[in-house]
């Protein structure tokens, strides 16, 4: 290009967008090489990594858990009831493109020529199971293989225990009702073993073909049969079908998924999800703070740039465009790098969790990446943009007069942007108003407390400083000199430490709670329907076979009639939908063969009108010893010197029915009315899969009313064979096998626990990043100040000591505030979100401040040591350039 042509190309027009972008990219590249942008980029990458990583992981885990839980149902959705749902619904589901199957479950006696046995019979259609596998063997306790065909007509598959129980071998004949069946396989495992009422699982399984059921004549009007329609297919189709069913049935039937079926699993999942959410919120928030801090420092260093660019003819808008370009490029890099890292992180977690998540995970969707990118975008605009855009207000006069204030822009504006951005992020991201409110409240609270506290402390600090040594004086005067900065630092440090403490404590509490819920030795068999006279014999049977016996609880159904003479209210009216808590005991007891859950009697109400009152029957017990996992919270436990006529009530239940200590309750037990006075209130762990009772009576109150006993056993592997001997000796007792269910819950809890650990670690990294950027943010000023101090003759040792004291002081302050904040937010989180009981963590009150002091002092000292180690001349020259 000739000189002339190029001159012609230079129009009077100002810099074009491409020119500005080129300048932006060059600045970006040079600043990157100079290390200026590393922390900023790191913070943004961190935000994207944590969000996309956590979202990817939860996305896939969630789907995996749903898939796994689908095998718990043998289907994606189940429709069940005591009545058979309309047959047309199956056809409609098939028409909509869903796979369907049908199951009928009932308890029945089966016979061989020598013996009989109460079994849990289950008749299934050809398509069963829709999800999961049927595992069978050709020998009792033989090697298992998969056979999803199900028993052919005229055949049954039975659990191992049935064969010795009836004295049969494979190929022999078994009688069920009017039917005659060949035992063709040993059933080792069925996916939905635990589904349905407990009675469906009372006894070993006999699996038969649905088409054989009519010929047995076993199902008569009034028989207790559980009907289940199984559905599997695409999620959207399932949802459409669920709506259709709801319309058809007026809410009488409902499609359930695993969350409806197992309170324990759904609790664990819900808490795990809340924790992951909270963790990623903290991670994003911390990354946001880090972004804000680093962007601020970056922009402070660029005021000179802006001024020089202005003298070179850049307009304010062009300067904005340049820095916008820089941010946009950063965003792009952060999104790409963060997404890749996020992917790696989640792959890493999965690798770690391989043993706990044995199933193949479904492919991740693209949403997590969008989430990560969007988060980075919001973070950028809320936290990084304001200080950088303030650059355009730089006066070009700055090139002549250095002292001109850098930002004439109001300094509170960036914070307003940041706070608004954080709020949007939290709400949008959590979609959970409660968690958002708690989080925002915690942050606001800390900021508020801090302002007051640091103001006071920084003041008293000055008074103390006058008396103390000169290093202390130097440190305190530094803290006061940078009061705004010091307060900001304490704020950032305490928010970071608070986040970490909250998550760490929550994690520990959750995991401890789960371990306490279902410890390794949780009994996994319920024995019920044991008569008074059988108890002693069974206890010695267990002792002879070296199995640990657990307490035998007498159990009887009791209906609460009146409270202090007034009719008892019903805390949970809808007993079909299980809106209330139902314990293993209730679930088991309610299904006892001849025991209805509720019945109607005609009572004369207080107003004289006769109306039927539905009485809710609860399984109750009596005991002198307080059962494990029960805590008396009002009154006191009667212990061994109890008097008859007392009752202990579960606290929540008492609240719902409006009962307090000393109230007189009248129960109907086996057609007799029993009066008892409320002696104490208990809390109960409902999720421990153990016998739990709303009402416990003092011994001597109900003893004469013909209770049966309930006990639990821990039987694993080969030990289960003992059940046969036990049942042969005591044929009338009922054994519920919940080992598969407990194992499943334990495995899901283990998965969720690992996820929680990981999130806590991720947030830790984010927190470290914030601490680092916060310390770095004051570095320039420290360099200048210390160089001046040293030229004035202050010794290295003095400056080092004063630095250490300064950071330790700020760290201590932050630690104290963080501890208070963490305990407060934990209180609200645990009681409102995680449904845990909160108790103060005493050790944290020491550990929090101590950790704050040590960490901040170490970090700050390490980062600023180079301030002291560089020669004052070099520093002054560097800064004046």
């Amino acid at each position, binding site marked *: 290009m000739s000189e002339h042509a190029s001159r012609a190309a230079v129009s009077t027009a100002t810099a074009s967008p491409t020119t500005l972008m080129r300048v932006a990219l060059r600045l970006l590249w*040079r600043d990157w090489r100079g290390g200026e942008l590393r922390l900023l980029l790191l913070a943004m990458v961190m935000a994207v990594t944590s969000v996309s990583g956590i979202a990817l992981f939860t996305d896939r885990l969630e789907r995996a858990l749903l898939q796994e839980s689908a095998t718990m149902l043998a289907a994606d959705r189940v429709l069940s009831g005591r009545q058979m749902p309309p047959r047309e619904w199956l056809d409609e589901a098939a028409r909509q493109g869903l796979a369907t199957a049908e199951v009928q479950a009932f308890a029945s006696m089966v016979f061989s020529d020598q013996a009989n046995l109460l079994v849990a019979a289950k008749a299934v259609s050809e398509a069963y199971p829709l999800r999961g596998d049927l595992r069978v063997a050709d020998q009792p306790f033989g090697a298992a293989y998969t056979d999803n065909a199900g028993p052919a007509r005229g055949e049954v598959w039975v659990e191992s225990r049935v064969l010795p129980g009836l004295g049969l071998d494979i190929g022999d004949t078994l009688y069920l009702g009017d039917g005659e069946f060949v035992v063709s396989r040993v059933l080792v495992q069925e996916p939905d073993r635990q589904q349905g009422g407990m009675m469906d699982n009372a006894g070993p399984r006999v699996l038969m073909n649905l088409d054989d059921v009519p010929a047995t004549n076993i199902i008569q009007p009034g028989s207790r049969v559980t009907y289940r329609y199984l559905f599997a297919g695409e999620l959207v189709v399932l949802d459409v079908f669920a709506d259709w069913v709801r319309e058809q049935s007026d809410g009488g039937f409902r499609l359930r998924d695993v969350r409806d079926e197992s309170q324990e699993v759904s609790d664990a999942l819900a808490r795990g999800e809340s924790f992951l959410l909270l963790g990623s919120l903290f991670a994003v928030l911390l990354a946001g703070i880090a972004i804000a801090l680093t962007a601020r420092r970056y922009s402070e260093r660029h005021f000179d740039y802006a001024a020089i660019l*202005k*003298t*070179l003819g850049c307009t304010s808008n062009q300067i904005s465009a340049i820095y916008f370009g820089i941010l946009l490029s950063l965003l792009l890099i952060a999104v790409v790098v963060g997404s890749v890292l996020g992917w790696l992180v989640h792959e890493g977690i999965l690798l770690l969790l391989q043993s706990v998540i044995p199933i193949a995970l479904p492919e991740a969707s693209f949403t997590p990446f969008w989430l990560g990118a969007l988060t980075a975008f919001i973070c950028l605009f809320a936290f990084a943009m304001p200080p950088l855009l303030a650059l355009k207000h730089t006066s070009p006069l700055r090139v002549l007069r250095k002292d001109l204030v850098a930002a004439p822009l109001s300094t509170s504006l960036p914070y307003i942007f940041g706070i608004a951005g954080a709020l949007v992020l939290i709400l949008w991201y959590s979609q959970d108003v409660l968690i958002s409110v708690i989080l925002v409240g915690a942050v606001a609270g800390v900021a508020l407390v801090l302002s007051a506290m640091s103001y006071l402390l920084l003041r008293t600090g000055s008074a103390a400083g006058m008396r103390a040594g000169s290093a202390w004086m130097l440190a305190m005067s530094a803290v006061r000199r940078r009061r705004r900065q010091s307060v900001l630092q304490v704020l950032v440090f305490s928010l970071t430490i608070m986040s970490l403490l909250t998550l760490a404590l929550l994690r520990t509490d959750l995991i401890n709670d789960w371990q306490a819920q279902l410890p390794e030795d949780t009994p996994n068999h319920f024995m019920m329907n044991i008569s008074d006279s059988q108890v002693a014999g069974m206890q010695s049977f267990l002792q002879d076979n070296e199995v640990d016996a657990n307490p035998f609880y007498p159990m009887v159904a009791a209906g609460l009639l009146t409270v202090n003479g007034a009719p008892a209210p019903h805390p949970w009216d809808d007993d079909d939908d299980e809106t209330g808590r139902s314990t293993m005991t209730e679930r088991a007891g309610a299904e006892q063969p001849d025991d209805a859950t509720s019945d109607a009697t005609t009572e004369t109400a207080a107003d004289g009108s006769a109306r039927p009152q539905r009485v809710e029957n609860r399984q109750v017990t009596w005991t002198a010893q307080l059962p494990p996992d029960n805590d008396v919270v009002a009154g006191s436990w009667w212990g061994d010197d109890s008097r008859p006529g007392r009752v202990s009530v579960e606290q929540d239940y008492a609240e719902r029915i409006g009962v307090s200590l000393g109230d007189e309750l009248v129960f109907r037990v086996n057609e007799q009315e029993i009066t008892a006075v409320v002696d104490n209130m208990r809390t109960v762990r409902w999720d421990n899969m153990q016998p739990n009772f709303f009402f416990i009576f003092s011994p001597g109150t109900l003893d004469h009313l013909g209770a049966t006993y309930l006990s639990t056993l821990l039987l694993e592997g080969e030990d289960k064979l003992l059940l046969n001997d036990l049942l042969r000796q005591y044929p009338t007792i009922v054994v519920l096998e919940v080992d598969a269910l407990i194992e499943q819950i334990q495995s899901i809890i283990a998965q969720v626990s690992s996820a929680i650990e990981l999130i806590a670690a991720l947030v830790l990294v984010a927190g470290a990043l914030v601490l680092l950027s916060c310390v770095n943010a004051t570095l320039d000023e420290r360099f200048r100040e210390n160089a001046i101090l040293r030229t004035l003759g202050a010794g290295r040792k003095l400056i080092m000591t004063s630095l250490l004291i300064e950071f330790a002081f700020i760290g201590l302050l932050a630690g104290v505030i963080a501890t208070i904040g963490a305990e407060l937010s934990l209180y609200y989180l645990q009681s409102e979100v995680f449904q845990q009981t909160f108790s103060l963590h005493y050790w944290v009150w020491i550990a929090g401040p101590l950790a704050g002091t040590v960490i901040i002092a170490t970090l700050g000292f390490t980062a600023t040591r180079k301030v002291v180690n560089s020669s004052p001349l070099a520093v002054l020259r560097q800064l004046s*350039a």
Partner: protein
Amino acid sequence: MTAMIEARHLAKQVATSEGQLVILKDISLSIDAAEAVAIVGVSGSGKSTLLGLMAGLDSASAGDMILDGQNLSTMDEEERAQLRGRSVGFVFQSFQLLPSLTALENVMLPIELKNDRDARRKAATLLQRVGLESRLQHYPNQLSGGEQQRVAIARAFASEAKILFADEPTGNLDAATGAKVIDLLFSLNAEFGTTLVLVTHDDRLAQRCGRLVRLVAGEITEDSVVDGVGDGVGDAAHV
């Protein structure tokens, strides 16, 4: 010939905690194209402030400032920035290079901002002209003060400005280095036919300009043609 720079009754005052501080009062001054003017005066007399006003880095409290035929007083900061980009180059006491860019990139910057594709070659030529052809890829902190100021001079001429403002360009340099830098400044100035406004304490430096304007407490006390160097362009007048 019309004036390249014309100040009419220019005044500047700022609000301080102790009330209004008058920095400049009633400055009238006219500088023709290709003239070289030195502004001298004791520290605090308002030299830098006047330079800033003339270059459109700041706006006056009163009076008109006409630069290259355009009235700065009626322009906003955006328009002034564009005018600076077109017509004005700067050399500062503290060099004011962008520390994260190399010498070459610093000189390229004003050329690029004019959308000139040929920036790299032109910048390299200019750096060669100031004797830094071997330091193109060096960063400012790898250069001595004199070298940095030579880069700044190259950058000032890179924008093909009609007017060059220099605020104590030798203030941070020793005498020998300062002299070299000044030689360079004047020879480039002559070569490009630029109008030069130079603020300095240094009388010997002032002698090299054709005209000398003295400020005392914000007022012009002297405006004279300098003997020996004068090329007959300036007006000799005592105020």
